[in-house]
């Protein structure tokens, strides 16, 4: 089943580079499974929720989770994600995909120079 393979690849790269599963899941859903941008992004978010929760538990057992700092960046993100999701519904699918391609190029450059 392709989704299992995509999940395995995403989890592997996510742990290896700390890039988060979405950078792997969304492109593979678009290109391998032929999904549209909106369901790909939405399903990726739900999947990341499961992965992040299991990761948090693992890190928390080692005492590597700082709740205050997590709230400092996570609460603003939780607020803006609602607006961005609403905006995404108004954009055309190919516009979302072109913006996503540009975002991936940015990530690639950042990984290369970091």
């Amino acid at each position, binding site marked *: 089943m392709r989704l299992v393979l995509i999940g395995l690849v995403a989890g592997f790269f996510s742990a290896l580079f700390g890039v988060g599963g979405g950078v792997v899941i969304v492109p593979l859903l678009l290109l391998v499974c032929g999904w549209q941008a909106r369901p790909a992004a939405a399903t990726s978010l739900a999947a990341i929720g499961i992965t992040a929760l299991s990761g948090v538990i693992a890190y928390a057992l080692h005492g590597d989770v700082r709740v205050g700092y997590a709230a400092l*960046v996570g609460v603003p993100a939780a607020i803006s994600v609602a607006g961005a999701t609403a905006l995404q519904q108004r954009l055309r699918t190919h516009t979302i995909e072109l913006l996503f391609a540009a975002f991936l190029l940015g990530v690639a450059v950042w990984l290369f120079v970091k």
Partner: protein
Amino acid sequence: MTYALAIVLGLVAGGLAGMFGVGGGILFVPTLVALGLGYHDATGTSLLAIVPTVLVGTWRQSSYGNVRWRGALVLGLAAAVAAQGGVALAEALSDGTLRKLFAGLLVLVAVQIAWRARRADP
């Protein structure tokens, strides 16, 4: 790095999450490192920050009917399992070379997505 800048970067990360379906960790980790956290603490803390972000994002997306729950469950569980293996392997492999290979792969993927988007109907 000031707290105000960290909040702004948090807002941007949420924007990326809503637009593209990424968790936001790509911005959270460098932000937390710049705030003075070690790389390990930053990764663990970033994962916790991702949780409310994707919860709200998933809730909003599901109200638009975009979430495929069974697919998400399969992807998420497989990724959670593989992440354990990834951590073990990350210790054993040279980081720099792999990161550049991955960066190169992302460029190819970006070109292919852009190509597909241009061909598709508006």
